[in-house]
């Protein structure tokens, strides 16, 4: 498997900006990216920085990026207007794996709901049934609810909020636990959990799946520079696997062998930062 040889940024005007929550916007680009759910791109704001972002939707005519304003570059992005140019490189990395007809349990924390929405929208076409569990601090931080609801009857939406302003009060992992508990033994093999969000959430989800002997895939986000397997900044311990190439989506059994899973990540100079 050769990586994409040409990784020059493709300059694209922002076609549309959708405000999702106070800190989150979805940026729409009219371009056939050809990404699969779980893959990411690098988005470059000239003179500012370039950062990895999961693809929140990709079809024949457009793709979406759903972006939290957290620091310098994402805040600058949030100030940009329709028509402004950014550079896009990718898609890079691995994608979610499942079979037609599988039962998918999606656990999204933070912007994790966005790539999972992309996954769900593809999976329903493949006759999958879906439990879509989202969580956030409060109602106003929940993402993509309306879109998920429109995916049809095969998708069941579960909501958890820390403050109980909507859905179950508590963590989304609590909902996961009850969903997993209700899986009949005979259905375990075709049930797949996909967890995308804060690493500690994914770690908890993995522990639950491990206990229930249900398969699980997680998205391991590490500090990325190149995005295509050269710089070495995104490698995990002790396998040395590159999360931009052999990840970000990995089976949780592989994640569980990573010393850093749920424990630490590294900053841009490779220093360990505990979660």
């Amino acid at each position, binding site marked *: 498997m050769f990586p994409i040889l*040409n990784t*020059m940024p493709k*300059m694209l005007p922002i076609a549309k900006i959708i405000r999702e929550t106070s800190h989150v916007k979805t940026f729409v680009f009219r371009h056939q990216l050809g990404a699969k759910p779980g893959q990411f791109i690098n988005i470059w704001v000239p003179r500012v*920085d370039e950062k990895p972002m999961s693809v929140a939707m990709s079809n024949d005519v457009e793709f979406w990026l759903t972006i939290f304003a957290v620091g310098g570059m994402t805040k600058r992005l949030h100030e940009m207007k329709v028509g402004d140019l950014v550079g896009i490189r990718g898609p890079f990395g691995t994608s979610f794996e499942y079979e037609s007809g599988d039962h998918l349990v999606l656990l999204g924390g933070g912007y994790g709901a966005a790539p999972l929405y992309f996954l769900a929208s593809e999976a329903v076409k493949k006759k999958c049934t879906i439990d879509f569990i989202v969580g956030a601090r409060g109602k106003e931080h929940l993402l993509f609810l309306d879109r998920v609801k429109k995916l049809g009857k095969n998708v069941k939406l579960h909501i958890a909020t820390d403050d109980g302003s909507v859905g179950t009060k508590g963590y989304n992992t609590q909902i996961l636990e009850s969903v997993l508990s209700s899986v009949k033994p005979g259905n375990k093999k075709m049930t797949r959990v996909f967890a995308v969000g804060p690493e500690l959430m994914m770690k908890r989800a993995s522990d639950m799946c491990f206990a229930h002997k249900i398969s699980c895939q997680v998205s391991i986000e590490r500090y990325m520079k190149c995005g295509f397997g050269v*710089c070495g900044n995104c*490698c995990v311990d*002790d396998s040395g696997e590159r999360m931009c190439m052999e990840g970000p989506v990995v089976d949780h059994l592989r994640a569980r062998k990573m010393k850093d899973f749920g424990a630490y990540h*590294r*900053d841009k*100079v490779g220093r360990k930062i505990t979660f």
Partner: protein
Amino acid sequence: MKVDLSVEFCGVRFPNPLVLASGILGVTAASMANVVRHGAGGVTTKSLWLEAHMGHPNPVILTTEHFMINAVGVPDAGIEKAKEELAIYNSMKKAPIIANIIAGRKSDYGQIAEEIAKLNPDIIEVNISCPNVEDELGKPFACSRDDAAAVTREVKRRVKKIPVIVKLSPNVTSLLEIAKSVADAGADGFCALNTWGPGMVIDLETRQPILANKVGGVSGPATKPLTIKAVYDLYRATKLPIIATGGMMTGEDAIEALMAGAQLVGVGTAVHYRGIEVFGKMRDEMGKWCTQHKVKKVEEIIGTLKY
């Protein structure tokens, strides 16, 4: 036929001549061990600083079918991280490790060298040739005969038992002038070459340089003939051991470099063009070539070019 691909370089035996080049997949011990697992005969750390060094913002690496340009800006967390990672690498060591060191001032090279020497790398490689920190640090020391020699002397003074090799820059009027002065200053070998330029890539839409650092070192398969010539010149002029680095993509490229006089072959950019599997592929290609040409020990072909 069983082919012995191992080579001795500065007294250290490498299971095969393919060494991960500095700055590629060299941030952590785990990553370097992974490269060895994929077939490399040795690894080079990314350039290590005494203190943390931030490097440049993204984008730091661009590629086309024809070249790679990078201005990562030599980020590093400093000596404490080096200690931790080198200890891990050594604890699971399967192939020699070359510690590549860098500093901003000539006088600082001695200290980082001394600190790194304590960590017992097999070889110390002195990076005086990075073209993408020019704005920060000025012309690389590898561009001046006297600076290059001064750095070499300083490192050699502080490092006693570990072989010290110097990484040369192609961006000079006379490579041999620099190399000879480095050799006279006590270098035990060379790594030839660092990246070319710097070069620049402009985004036509915004009319701005794409790399955050604006300019960066150029590498890629097209640099191979330049590396081969440099290696041969060094081999002929100094007889010191050489790592041929630059544009090495295939086992045949590595054989060519050995014929030109190299003991080892540095592989960096090829990780992009052929994947991380490139080490195993190149190793197997070398083995196949040797078998076909009845070469039992790959060391036999070093310097056999009939110029």
